């Protein structure tokens, strides 16, 4: 519950000199709490049509009392949401080095193109003959993504990465079923994204954990022992969540294929491969891409996401409907008559606004630009690694790709954990990195700068991290109680998880 500003009590103990804590901009009340009876944003003009009786029209659905709705003036509403927006952090404000999430810049040209009226106002029920432009976008993006991944067929429909995983494992299951046996289990490395086991379980598979070797990669011997004729697939992230490329990937594929199992690639880290290597060439059978990571569409609250699934030709008959087909005259139509399809995975055709943005990004960069993007992402991660490895422990020495994973081992000796360092980073003006993931690293700091950051911004980040390492030694309390510069200080995450307050309720007496 927001602090009542009329009591003018400081919110936190860590008052920065000169900072007025009780001010409205620091303590915005909930919109319900700001409400006062009779306030209104609009005055309706006199009725110039015959009045109707809503009770008569709505029958049982009619409500006499509308419940507690906030009543505010227009300027109050605008200020409320504008103030809230200033408490947010965004890639437009600074570096957002959240590992695994690929919080890269969303170029403005994407937005310009997506807002062209013909695209922005397109209706999904338009007949194909009136939607050829939008269908051409879809067709072109499909072609680009197939070229980038080296796969044979693709669906753009899944609305997020996990939705793509689900679709990809449905294809896997449908294919195994067509071979007479859906099989029983899916192998998942212990470094995987949590969505991988969730996906396999939802698709009716048992999950078998695969231990990483000392380099953080797949242990080929263990894999060979675990893969059998009951194994439907291995779900593998490459590069792994440690930012390490599986350099035995073709052997991994061979081990699986020998037993009739498929290789599913979680393409969350595809931004480290685009223009360099193609999953279709190193043995992957089916994979998803995250347009909202690799291909610069908005991400993290701003979305929506898009998780296209690309596959080899033998999986093509099982793709979700509808599938885009080119007619002899060069026009396109949607094919719904696909008897082997896994069915629909989403209404209409997917998040088409994201397809426009992703295609704009691909075309604006071109093949050489995309290749450079990949190189810059890897270069930036390695620059950070090099500049911080004397102060932060590197649990795996294998070369980094697009992200680098440190551990808090040295800082933990002073009682400072990865979560504390992340919170202190907020005071330096950066979004925290990914904390405590991947799980195979105790006290992980997972840092992904992406290609968007200049060397100047990277240097600021490095200086902040070096300064925090010094603070952890000289004044650990300062780090353990961070952040100090934010509206509220450290929140009680344990209480929030154990006793979550999920909805606001009016107080019995608002003035008590």
């Amino acid at each position, binding site marked *: 519950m927001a602090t009542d500003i009329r009591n003018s009590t400081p919110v936190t103990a860590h008052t920065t000199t000169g900072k007025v804590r009780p001010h409205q901009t620091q303590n915005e009340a909930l919109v319900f709490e700001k409400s006062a009876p009779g306030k209104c944003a609009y005055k309706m003009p006199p009725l110039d049509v015959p009045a109707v009786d809503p009770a008569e029209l709505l029958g049982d659905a009619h409500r006499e009392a509308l419940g507690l709705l906030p009543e505010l003036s227009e300027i109050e509403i605008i200020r409320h949401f504008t103030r809230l927006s200033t408490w947010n952090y965004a890639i437009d404000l600074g570096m957002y080095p959240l590992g695994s999430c690929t919080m890269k810049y969303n170029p403005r040209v994407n937005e310009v193109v997506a807002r062209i009226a013909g695209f922005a106002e397109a209706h999904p029920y338009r007949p194909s003959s009136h939607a050829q432009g939008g269908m051409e976008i879809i067709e072109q993006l499909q072609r680009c993504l197939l070229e980038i991944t080296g796969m044979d067929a693709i669906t753009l429909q899944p609305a997020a990465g996990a939705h793509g995983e689900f679709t990809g494992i449905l294809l896997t299951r449908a294919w195994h079923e067509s071979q007479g046996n859906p099989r029983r289990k899916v192998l998942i490395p212990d470094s995987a994204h949590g969505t991988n086991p969730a996906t396999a379980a939802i698709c009716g598979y048992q999950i078998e954990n695969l231990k990483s070797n000392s380099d953080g990669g797949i242990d080929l011997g263990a894999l060979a022992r675990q893969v059998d004729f009951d194994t439907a697939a291995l779900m593998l992230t490459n590069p792994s969540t440690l930012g390490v490329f599986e350099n035995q990937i073709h052997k991994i594929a061979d081990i699986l294929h020998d037993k009739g199992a498929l290789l599913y690639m979680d393409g969350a880290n595809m931004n480290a491969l685009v223009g360099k290597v193609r999953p279709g060439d190193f043995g992957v059978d089916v994979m998803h891409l995250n347009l909202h990571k690799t291909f610069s569409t908005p991400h993290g609250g701003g979305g929506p996401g898009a998780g296209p699934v690309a596959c080899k030709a033998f999986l093509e008959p099982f793709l979700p409907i509808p599938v885009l087909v080119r007619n002899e005259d060069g026009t396109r139509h949607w094919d719904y008559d696909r008897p082997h399809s896994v069915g629909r995975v989403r209404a209409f055709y997917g998040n088409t606004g994201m397809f426009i943005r992703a295609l704009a990004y691909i075309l604006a960069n071109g093949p050489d630009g995309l290749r450079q993007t990949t190189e810059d992402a890897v270069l930036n991660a390695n620059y950070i690694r090099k500049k911080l490895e004397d102060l932060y422990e590197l649990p795996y020495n294998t070369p980094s790709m697009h992200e680098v994973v440190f551990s808090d081992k040295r800082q933990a000796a002073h009682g400072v954990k990865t979560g504390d360092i992340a919170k202190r980073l907020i005071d330096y003006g950066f979004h925290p990195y990914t*904390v405590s993931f991947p799980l195979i690293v105790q006290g992980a700091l997972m840092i992904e700068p992406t290609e968007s950051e200049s060397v100047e911004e990277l240097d600021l980040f490095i200086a902040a991290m070096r300064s925090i390492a010094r603070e952890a030694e000289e004044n650990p309390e300062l780090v353990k109680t961070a952040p100090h510069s934010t509206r509220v200080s450290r929140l009680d995450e344990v209480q929030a998880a*154990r006793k979550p307050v999920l909805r606001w309720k009016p107080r019995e007496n608002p003035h008590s």
Partner: protein
Amino acid sequence: MPYPANYRYTREHEWISLDGTIGTIGITDYAQNSLGDIVYVDVPKVGDSVTANATFGSVESVKAVSDLFSPVSGKVTAINEALKTEPDKINAAPHETWIIKVELSNPAEFNSLLDAAAYEKFISEETGS
């Protein structure tokens, strides 16, 4: 925190104590310390079967959800209902706070587990300290 000498341990950081054919299972101090504040424990039902080295539930902390691996095979005879409302008991007293009790189908499995000295050696290797 000392590791009780009469318990046996897994490399996945569960402990088990044995009374006749009934095994009592929990997670170790090392496990609760790595996980941080525990907020939820997901357990099987009484009567469910558990298999040695296979997952029987999960434990959720503010950091992560981790699988629980059964040290032995058998049938669940009891679950610790108190953990529904007070999962933090595991943080406070990991070696006294049990999660499930199991009737062992193969009591010999108990003896193949790590003893306290071997487990302590294992975690010191794992942490590299």
